[in-house]
């Protein structure tokens, strides 16, 4: 047992060394890029470097490398200060950071051994150098003399690295006089959120261009600069020699099969030769027109031996057939084992994924004044590394959810008769059918089915009557619906009801399933079932326009047959009812942009496949449904990196390549072929009218930015400069939603929200507060005054905002 633990630790250290090298590499390339970057790009790099330091810290903790951990902590707080804008990255600071990275490399290279004297001294020096900078984040700090790196006027507020704030009046000085810019003659304009200089405003993105690249939600656009961080774990697999040995043995067995096959081929050839010569001799005898006496005798003898020979031949053939059958059997076994074991090479113990999570939970809980502990069992279970990689985000989402909504505050827990600290338990277990079951269970408050029901009714997923008739378990499982949240307020962390929808989408992409059980008051358990390996899954074979395609079974809700008169035309779109719910209906061939004759005439019964991606369902008309089979997903080769609607291909029994379709893409494309009809119940803005949004924001930059984003997304936008003007405008014109800053002159966002809620006419209007105030208290105050969503500016990005608005409209 102890031995096993030792082994595991050694393996973990090995993994850590690789991981650490990646993190350090990413940090140092990030820091280098930092010096050459400016504005929003720089902020993105700071963010990334910060995360790298954070990840390395977590990893170091899991292998108990206190020295690395403490260095990372200092780095982290340094980067955090840069993130907050209280510390401006300067060459001097980076001079202190780079040596620290070198020390880190030295420390990480020998995770098991003690550092030598030199390293220890360097470590102390690096630590104190970092501390000097990290500690000096106050306005009156030593930062001032440091020459900030040249910065162009930030294009968006989001990433603008603010200069040290002038202590007393943070909002008055809109534009801090430009520090001497060594390289860029243009005056760098620093500003804090809320304030903006005219210069900065004129540089803000034009409203018609809603996606300034700086606010992009995809880190990939920044990522290429930091290859290690972007690519994640590089594509190497660490394999134990034991596993490799087993494979080598199996491969060697193939040699035997090869020899046997060669032998068999020789046997068959000999038989054929024998038969030929025998037939030739017979032809010589029987071909003569006249027989001599001798010939007749020979022929008689010949006939006799013929019988014997044919028996012998039959015998030989039979034994050969038996032997070949044996060969085929053993070769099949050999091939299967070899394939299986080769797949196993890609398996990694769950511990690779789970190791860093306990510290994450602790940190998350601490940040909310809660106390929670993560326990993990079954970390020895092995899963395909690609599955593990894909599971990381969903698991973190779930853990966040547990901490956010599940685990109660200590005093509340004590009140309810529970231990003051909450426990989250992750259990990995091998399940039937080559699958792995992961459960994430907490002993928190549980999910309130009544609240879920109410939320579902609000979203139009259920009628009030349905809600009373639906079983509790079913109700609780509605939490996976996008947009459904039981949280009274949307925050940047969770509550937007998106997290669980994303979790489900990710799990389904892996061909897995997720469900939840919950007992009000005593906890929630999420159960994820995923295949051990992503390579194979079940698929439904369909045919359209005379061609076969495969749809992943995990995304096929059902296959039905539709009568021509069951198809309805609604505003030029076709719909049909599935289980009493209207669903948009499109021809698969149209989505796939195929031409050619329709396989079936329109006036006949036709098969329909209902495909689900996330919580959107679309019915696809096909010509035939051929059945279901296990398929192995293959890429389309290097030339076809990503083809819309096609996830890959598999090789069918007859050797032909059959494309495997991508469910998420299909549903997306279906919306374009024929805008998705009533299937999405809340798509009411699509019913002709553009939603009108009112913005209240005193900063011209923020105002222009938000206006641009919203207009870009197709909304009609009116902007006002403070709460007072917003309220007046609301009384004159009709609006569907309000996006408001919190901190504004005359009337702030809280006051505005309260006034709206108090108004009879506009009391129901959704209000989204966008703010720099990120504290729990502010959020709670937001709930109190009745805000519908609360987005913290530091996490502000346009996709986030648009998503929230879409949920609320």
């Amino acid at each position: 047992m102890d031995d096993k633990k030792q082994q595991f630790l050694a393996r973990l250290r090995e993994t850590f060394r690789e991981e650490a090298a990646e993190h350090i590499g990413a940090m140092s390339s990030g820091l280098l890029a930092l010096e050459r970057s400016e504005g929003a790009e720089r902020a993105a790099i700071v963010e990334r470097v910060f995360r790298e330091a954070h990840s390395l810290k977590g990893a170091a903790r899991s292998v108990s490398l206190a020295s690395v951990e403490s260095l990372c902590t200092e780095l982290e707080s340094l980067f955090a200060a840069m993130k907050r804008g209280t510390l401006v990255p300067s060459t001097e600071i980076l001079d202190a950071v780079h040596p620290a990275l070198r020390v880190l490399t030295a420390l990480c290279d020998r995770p098991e051994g003690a550092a030598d004297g030199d390293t220890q001294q360097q470590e102390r020096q690096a630590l104190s150098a970092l501390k000097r900078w990290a500690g000096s984040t106050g306005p009156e700090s030593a930062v001032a003399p440091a020459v900030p790196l040249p910065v162009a006027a930030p294009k968006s507020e989001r990433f603008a690295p603010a200069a040290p704030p002038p202590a007393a009046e943070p909002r008055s000085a809109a534009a801090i006089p430009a520090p001497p810019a060594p390289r860029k003659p243009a005056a760098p304009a620093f500003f804090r959120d809320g304030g903006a200089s005219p210069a900065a405003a004129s540089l803000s993105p034009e409203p018609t261009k809603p996606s300034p690249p700086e606010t992009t939600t995809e880190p990939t656009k920044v990522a290429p600069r930091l290859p290690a961080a972007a690519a994640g774990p590089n594509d190497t697999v660490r394999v134990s020699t034991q596993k490799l040995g087993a494979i080598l043995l199996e491969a060697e067995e193939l040699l035997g099969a090869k020899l046997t096959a060669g032998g068999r081929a020789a046997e068959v050839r000999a038989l054929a030769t024998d038969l030929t010569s025998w037939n030739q001799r017979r032809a010589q005898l029987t071909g003569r027109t006249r027989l001599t006496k001798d010939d007749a005798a020979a022929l008689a003898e010949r006939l006799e031996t013929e019988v014997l020979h044919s028996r012998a031949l039959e015998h030989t053939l039979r034994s050969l057939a038996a032997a070949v059958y044996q060969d085929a059997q053993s070769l099949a076994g050999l091939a299967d084992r070899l394939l299986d074991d080769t797949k196993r090479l890609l398996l990694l113990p769950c511990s690779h994924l789970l190791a860093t999570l306990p510290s994450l939970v602790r940190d998350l809980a601490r940040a909310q004044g809660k106390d929670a502990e993560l326990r993990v069992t079954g970390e020895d279970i092995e899963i395909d590394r690609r599955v593990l990689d894909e599971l990381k985000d969903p698991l973190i989402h779930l853990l966040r959810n547990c901490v956010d909504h599940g685990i109660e505050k200590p005093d509340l827990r004590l009140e309810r008769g529970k231990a003051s600290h909450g426990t989250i338990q992750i259990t990995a277990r091998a399940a039937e059918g080559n699958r792995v079951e992961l459960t994430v269970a907490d002993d928190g408050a549980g999910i309130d089915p009544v609240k879920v029901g109410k939320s579902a009714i609000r979203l139009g997923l259920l009628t009030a009557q349905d809600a009373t008739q639906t079983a509790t378990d079913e109700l609780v499982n509605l939490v996976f619906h996008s947009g459904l949240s039981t949280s009274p307020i949307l925050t940047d962390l969770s509550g937007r009801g998106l997290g669980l929808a994303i979790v489900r989408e990710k799990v389904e992409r892996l061909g897995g399933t997720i469900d939840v059980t919950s007992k009000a008051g005593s906890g929630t358990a999420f159960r994820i079932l995923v295949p051990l390996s992503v390579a194979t899954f079940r698929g439904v074979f369909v045919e359209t326009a005379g061609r076969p395609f495969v749809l992943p079974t995990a995304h096929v809700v059902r296959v039905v047959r539709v009568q021509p008169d069951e198809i309805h035309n609604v505003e030029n779109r076709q719909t049909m009812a599935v289980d009493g719910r209207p669903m948009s209906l499109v021809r698969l061939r149209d989505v796939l942009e195929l031409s050619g004759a329709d396989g079936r005439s329109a006036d006949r019964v036709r098969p329909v496949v209902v495909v689900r991606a996330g919580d959107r369902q679309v019915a696809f008309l096909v010509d035939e449904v051929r059945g279901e089979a296990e398929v192995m997903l293959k890429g389309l080769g290097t030339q076809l990196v990503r083809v819309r609607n096609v996830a890959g291909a598999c090789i069918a029994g007859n050797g032909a390549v059959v494309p495997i379709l991508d469910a998420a893409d299909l549903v997306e494309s279906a919306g374009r072929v024929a805008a998705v009809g009533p299937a999405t119940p809340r798509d009411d803005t699509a019913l002709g009218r553009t939603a009108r949004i009112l913005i209240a924001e005193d900063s011209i930059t923020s105002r222009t930015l938000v206006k641009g984003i919203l207009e870009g997304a197709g909304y009609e936008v009116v902007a006002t400069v403070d709460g007072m003007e917003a309220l007046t405008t609301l009384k004159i014109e009709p609006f569907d939603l309000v996006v408001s800053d919190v901190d504004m002159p005359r009337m702030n966002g809280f006051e505005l929200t309260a006034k709206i809620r108090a108004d009879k006419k506009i009391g129901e209007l959704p209000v989204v507060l966008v703010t720099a105030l990120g504290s729990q208290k502010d959020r709670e105050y937001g709930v109190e005054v009745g805000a519908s969503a609360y987005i913290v500016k530091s996490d502000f990005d346009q996709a986030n905002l648009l998503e929230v608005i879409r949920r609320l409209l």
Partner: protein
Amino acid sequence: MATLEDAQPSRDEVRRILDARARVAARPPATADDVARVEVLAFSLAEETYAVETRFVREVCQLKDVTAVPCVPPFIAGVMNLRGRVLAIVDLRKLFDLPSRGLTELNRVIVLQDGDAEFGLLADAIDGLRSVATKELHDGLRTLTGVRDRFLKGITPQMLVVLDGGRLLSDAGLRVDESAAR
């Protein structure tokens, strides 16, 4: 004569000597520009002859079932199963906008490879290997279309159009990378 009989070379030895002679005889006559020659694989496609450097050709195989892939540009003829792997097939006629005159046999696939990148080129027939002096390669004729120019290595005095295999394999324009989400 006498010495030969004395020696009486063994059968193996005779074969070895003959092999060596055959190799010498098979060697192309040495020319001054020997260093600057490239070996190309010539193939015919839509009544024209093209060639591609052999260093980019991994193999040539029979055209078997090609599966069309939906939602790809026309120059992707589809994918085929090459010993269990999926290989994309490029149709140069579509890429070069060649008029489709006459019947075309399309019964060969030339598998191009450079590093990780690989795909198959459709061909009517393989004409064989040629050795081309690099300095004899002319730039493209004015009549060639833009797309062809981009993938052209040069044209020999015998009017053999030599394609730039490396360019074909690395050109982003020949790669499909597009998702349904805008």
